[in-house]
């Protein structure tokens, strides 16, 4: 818990600084706007958190969102049924997750190189499949999922809350959740305690893929169109959110609440930069610095912890 308090304090300071410098920051609509943007990053980052908990990583989430959104959009257009389209997106997202899982478990490939190869393969397939076309014009009801309001609160925020709840239940109140943490903390000890390593790793990568599929549907609704390069700018912020949230790359330590806080922190910074009219080309620089800072803190806390063994 100590780690989360430290991160909440960080958000409060950024928020305070912004509210002082721009008067439009501390308005309800802006806060809701930040929450909605953060909820989209959180969608992808939540699935990613599980892979990082097992000391692995899924670099293909961005490309996964791109392909799943295009496929879902195409099916939605041709069959006219939103449900079928959404199902396609989720199924394809999870399917890519299964492929990643198999590469990590059966072929025992280092997770980040396997998913890095998958990232470029998916990019190629999406470009070829779309061939430059875009699919647009989805029914209003569906678009509400992305940009609609319910009781004055943007819909994606409910989705974020539901996902957070499901994630916390999974990590704290299911045996599989505990086993995922154990695999990350000490994989050999978990194996020798009868934890089915392969099954859990596959589960984790399927979750990551499925979350990317879900995010694809929400982006589809929010953007009201499917384009080939929709997923390209999403991978780095998702990884940054997980790391800023305190989930350690070395596995076994972290939480979904932390990832949510990470997503919020990142979105706040970008929102702040926009409000302060800072040129957009500074954003990759700032994100890069934040990622390194977050991981450095993770390494330092880990070193201090290890010193006591």
């Amino acid at each position, binding site marked *: 818990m100590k780690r989360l308090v430290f991160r909440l304090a960080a958000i409060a300071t950024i928020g305070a600084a912004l509210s002082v410098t721009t008067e439009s920051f501390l308005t309800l609509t802006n806060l809701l706007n930040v929450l909605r943007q953060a909820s989209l990053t959180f969608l992808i980052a939540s699935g990613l958190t599980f892979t990082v908990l097992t000391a692995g990583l899924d670099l293909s989430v961005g490309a996964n969102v791109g392909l799943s959104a295009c496929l879902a959009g195409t099916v939605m257009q041709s069959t006219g049924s939103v449900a079928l389209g959404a199902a396609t997106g989720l199924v394809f997202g999870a399917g890519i997750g299964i492929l990643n899982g198999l590469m990590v478990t059966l072929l025992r490939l280092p997770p980040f*190189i396997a998913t890095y*190869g998958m990232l470029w393969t998916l*990019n*190629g397939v999406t470009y*070829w499949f779309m061939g430059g076309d875009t699919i647009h014009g989805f029914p209003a009801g569906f678009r509400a999922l992305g940009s609609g309001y319910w009781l004055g609160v943007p819909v994606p925020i409910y989705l974020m809350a539901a996902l957070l709840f499901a994630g916390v239940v999974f990590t704290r109140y299911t045996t599989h959740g505990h086993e995922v943490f154990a695999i990350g903390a000490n994989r050999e000890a978990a194996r020798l305690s009868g934890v089915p390593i392969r099954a859990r790793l596959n589960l984790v990568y399927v979750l990551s893929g499925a979350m990317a599929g879900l995010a694809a549907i929400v982006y589809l609704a929010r953007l009201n169109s499917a384009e080939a390069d929709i997923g390209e700018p999403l991978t780095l912020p998702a990884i940054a959110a997980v790391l800023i949230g305190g989930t350690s*790359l070395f596995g076994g330590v972290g939480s979904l609440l932390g990832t949510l806080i990470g997503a919020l922190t990142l979105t706040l910074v970008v929102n702040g930069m926009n409000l302060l009219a800072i*040129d957009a*080309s500074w954003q990759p620089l700032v994100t*890069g610095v934040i990622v390194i800072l977050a991981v450095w803190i993770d390494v330092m806390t880990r070193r201090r912890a290890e010193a006591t063994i």
Partner: protein
Amino acid sequence: MRSIPGIGYLLIALVLVFTAFGSGFATVTNGFNIGVQSSVLLLLALPMTLVIMSEGLDLSMGAVLSLAGVVLATLLMNGRSLPAASVAAIAVGALFGFANGLLVVGLGIPPFVATLGTLGIAQGLALVITGGQSVVGVGDALPALYESRPLGLPFSIVIALAAFLVFRFTFRHTPFGAYVSAIGGNRESLVLAGVKANRYHVGIYVLAGVMAGVAALLLTGRMSSGHPTAAIGMEFDAIAAVIVGGTSFERGKGSLGGTVIGVLTIGVLKNGLNVLEVPSSLQVASIGVLTIVALVIESILEPAARRLWRSA
């Protein structure tokens, strides 16, 4: 490492297929085309081989190359001499290489996250310096050098060959090559042998940065301008070439010769697909699939060697 890795046969097969189907593929000019196009990639893939052999990864090479190119072009535009501007570009590369080294070796940050961070920083700097514009007016010293044909070969091919020979010499005939394999294979024994392992480990990343600077010379000469996002994504082709060439992530297994074959395989694949007029979107997917296939082959061959080792 001594025998031709399996990928050598794939390269020969590709060449045969493209010669049969693609008209104009098997001509001298097209051969030079492949050579010129692959030379920049080889300059990135050579140091990337050493990085991967030391169980690391450098995602920032593409962005650092673009940044170095932009710095080079800006200096040339303001009238600086070619040698001075070139030294500055290579210095920028070395600086980012050193930063990567510090983050990975000094602070112990996992390599791909550290270099993901520096990628963002290098790309950000390039965008900020140029405001997104490409930098032209680099004068004619660099383009002339690039168009020159020492020994009858295009300049960039000569540079790439020279780089390969230098790397091969240092790898074979100086301790550096053995130490890189030791850092990946059994780092503790290197330390116990009294070698300052950290120094060499940082050196690997500095070398990657320097080569990105050198590659920037070629790319800026080729485009006679610098562009902030010119080489984004090239680091993936470099990593793919190294893996396809048989270098593995564990235990310091690596071969520079294999990497050269990997680079040529990708060069031939791209060129051939162009000559065959296959839709280019398939080209990106084909390189991704090629990498995964190479990884699969390696993981199948590998366990045999790994089991022996574990029982020792």
